[in-house]
């Protein structure tokens, strides 16, 4: 933020402190203090910190190399290292009035690759998270079908299954930023976003089984939660790539993600991927449900709402370096981030470090899946000066992610949903990165 903050430097680990030059002892202590975050003051504290740090470093043998470790099954289902405690879902203070109809955000700034760990997948509940007994859960399919059916989980898991990698992005992702910068980090600007390998039954299989009427045009999906959340899905998508899923990243769905069954509508705003799925009704009209009329509708200049705005258009964001982070040293840094499109595959991502004047094309991590997060990377040498980092996604339809100026020219600033504008991060000479918007 303030430009007079001094750059912090990466301090080399104090290897071989005893072999350092004569001035090295003092230098080592200073470095040790820097490494410990500068929290300790005074000679005794610094010395203690130095000794503590050196204890496990060469030439000393670390304590974990000299003791017996924990046995197997210390944690039967495994949890992240306790040193990873900073990496967790968070809520944005003041965004909602009740934690039961609210959202928590994925820490995109700390993730690698394209798969979101299931425990970090953002949460969005409309009436809290129910605990559904899989033995008593049923999926009903009825409406414009010849043979309405009821399936148990046992039935559903018996059908031929498929696994596919797809993102889920809430339609309101980046919704707080339409008019101006509102939140500090990529966790809050873009964290209603996740990507998993989903396993389940193609909805087309179930529709075929029930014998759907060829005049049908829509399917209503309903959740078993208190909200009984309902959304209309087009028959075209239902027969194309919509899945009824029970698996996520190799395990069953997490309760937060709809255990034991959810719909997965690839490329469409997250609310359509109805969790705790209990009912599918085939029909010939959209349902105009509360989540399609009072919410998840996009207010346009002039006062009309766009209704049934399903597709999540191409979008990207740099996750490192990103808002709230501090670059510790000049020189080489990898700029990396995520790109995705609800219309297909990411074809290209360009990155600018000067606010959009000039662009370079980033490397894409293969394989690139359709309607999935795609990891991009670009080499960058930070010279210690100010920089404005942006990424711009192009999908395989040729569509190019828009600027804020272009988006607002059409949709104004009140629509809440489907903000896929190019994000800008400012790098301050101090190394601090912050959220800004440019025109």
């Amino acid at each position, binding site marked *: *933020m303030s430009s007079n903050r001094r750059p912090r430097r990466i301090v080399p680990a104090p290897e071989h402190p005893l072999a350092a030059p004569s001035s090295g002892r003092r230098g080592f202590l200073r470095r040790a203090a820097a490494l410990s975050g500068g929290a300790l003051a005074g000679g005794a504290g610094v010395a203690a910190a130095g000794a503590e740090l050196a204890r496990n470093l060469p030439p000393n043998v670390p304590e974990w190399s000299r003791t017996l470790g924990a046995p197997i099954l210390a944690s039967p289902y495994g949890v992240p290292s*306790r*040193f*990873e405690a*900073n990496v967790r879902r968070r809520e944005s203070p003041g965004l909602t*009035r*009740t*934690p039961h109809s609210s959202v928590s955000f994925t820490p995109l*700034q700390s993730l690698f690759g394209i798969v979101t760990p299931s425990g970090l997948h953002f949460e969005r509940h409309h*009436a809290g998270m129910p605990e559904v007994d899989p033995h008593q859960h049923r999926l*009903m399919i009825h409406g414009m079908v*010849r*043979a309405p*059916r*009821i399936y148990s989980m046992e039935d*559903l898991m*018996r*059908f031929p299954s498929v696994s596919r990698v797809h993102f889920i992005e809430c339609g309101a992702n980046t919704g707080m930023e339409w008019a101006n*910068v509102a939140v*500090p*980090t990529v966790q809050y600007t873009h964290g209603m976003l996740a990507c998993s390998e989903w396993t389940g039954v*193609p909805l*087309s299989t179930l529709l*075929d*089984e029930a*014998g759907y009427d*060829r005049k049908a045009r829509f399917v*209503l999906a309903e959740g078993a939660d*208190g*909200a*009984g959340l309902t959304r209309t899905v*087009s028959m075209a998508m239902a027969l*194309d*790539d919509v899945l009824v899923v029970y698996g996520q990243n190799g395990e069953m769905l997490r309760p937060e993600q709809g255990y034991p069954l959810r719909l997965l509508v690839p490329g469409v705003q997250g609310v359509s991927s109805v969790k705790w799925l209990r009912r599918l*009704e085939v029909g010939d*009209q959209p349902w*105009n449900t*509360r989540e399609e*009329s*009072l919410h998840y*509708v996009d207010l346009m200049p002039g006062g009309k709402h766009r*209704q*049934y705005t399903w*597709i999540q258009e191409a979008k990207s964001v740099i996750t490192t370096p990103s808002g*709230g*982070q501090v670059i*510790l040293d000049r020189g080489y840094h990898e700029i990396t981030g995520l790109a995705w499109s*609800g*219309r297909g595959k990411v074809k290209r991502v360009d990155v600018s470090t000067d606010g*959009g*004047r*000039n*662009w*370079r094309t980033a490397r894409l991590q293969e394989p690139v899946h359709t309607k999935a997060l795609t990891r991009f990377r670009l080499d960058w040498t930070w010279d210690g000066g100010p920089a404005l980092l942006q990424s711009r996604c192009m999908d395989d339809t040729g569509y190019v*992610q*828009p*600027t804020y100026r272009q988006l607002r020219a059409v949709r104004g600033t009140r629509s809440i949903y489907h903000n896929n504008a190019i994000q800008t991060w400012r790098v301050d000479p101090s190394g601090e990165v912050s*959220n800004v918007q*440019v*025109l």
Partner: protein
Amino acid sequence: MFRCCRRSVAAAVAAVLALAATPLPAAAPAATTSAGSPATPSTPRFGFGKPATPQEIAGWDIDVRPDGTGLPPGRGSVAQGQRVYDEKCASCHGTFGESNDYMAIAGGVGTLAGDAPIRTTGSKLNHATTLWDYINRAMPFNAPKTLTVEEVYALTAYVLHLNDLLPADATLDRDALLALRLPNRDGFTQDHGFMTRSGRPDTRNVACMTNCAAEVRLSSEMPEHARDAHGNLAEQVRDVGPLAGAKTAAAAPARGSLPAAGPDGGELAKGNGCTACHGTASKIVGPSFREIGGRYAGAAGAEATLAAKVRSGGVGAWGQVPMPPQPQVKEADVTAIVQWILGGAR
């Protein structure tokens, strides 16, 4: 493996294709059947599951469409609705539907085109059927699907009355509800490119590579006073790696420390929905837990008094917004929550 033996050739081909390859559109019968023929094989390919009986469907098929499909017969009056509303709804939605910070259900008509749109049920909704459907399936927030058909009609009538769409002495039945025309009836459009994957986008950026902008103007940045609004960002970045987090607030517990195990009273209050109306330190709908603790701590029988209030509800101690009874909260949870409140809600 397959039970059926009377499939048409086309269906057999479709089935083979579905087995052989993904994606699955090849199995979509629209592409493989001619006009007038049945859309799907007349016999299920797998036959898993069981038939859904009309009675089973009737119990679950609760949706109501704008054309009235699914709307059961029944009726309810504005006056009856007000009684139910005051008991079960006003604590969150406000006595006059102005909301206690939840989505307002009245007002704002005519503001959607302006710079400060007031988004309420009254200003946004296009069909009264959706209001009926939503109250029926999702309200009250802490006890959904417990209202009778008559209560849902009555509440729908009262909400419409709060929006000046029904007089105070009105009664609403199925026909009357379907005949209503709401202010925002024509306020929605499907003329956009978001309904299909091949839909036409509304922006057309060009992937320019060099000298793309003559000037880059900073239009918005985080104000300094909001620097700590999301806590200490230094604790929101991985502890190890080439980037640190910006220190924006006082440090919390030492690095690497783990959250306390087991739910405390505060967690239980959250889990049981108490925090929908009570903040830890700030008034939402009801008083904050610390206010309550401050008033009752040390008083004789405080724990039993508060536990009884949780169970049976109450009104008058903190104002005229009633607290609904909460019989669904487990006894042990009530005790832990009350003890936590009396201990200062820390």
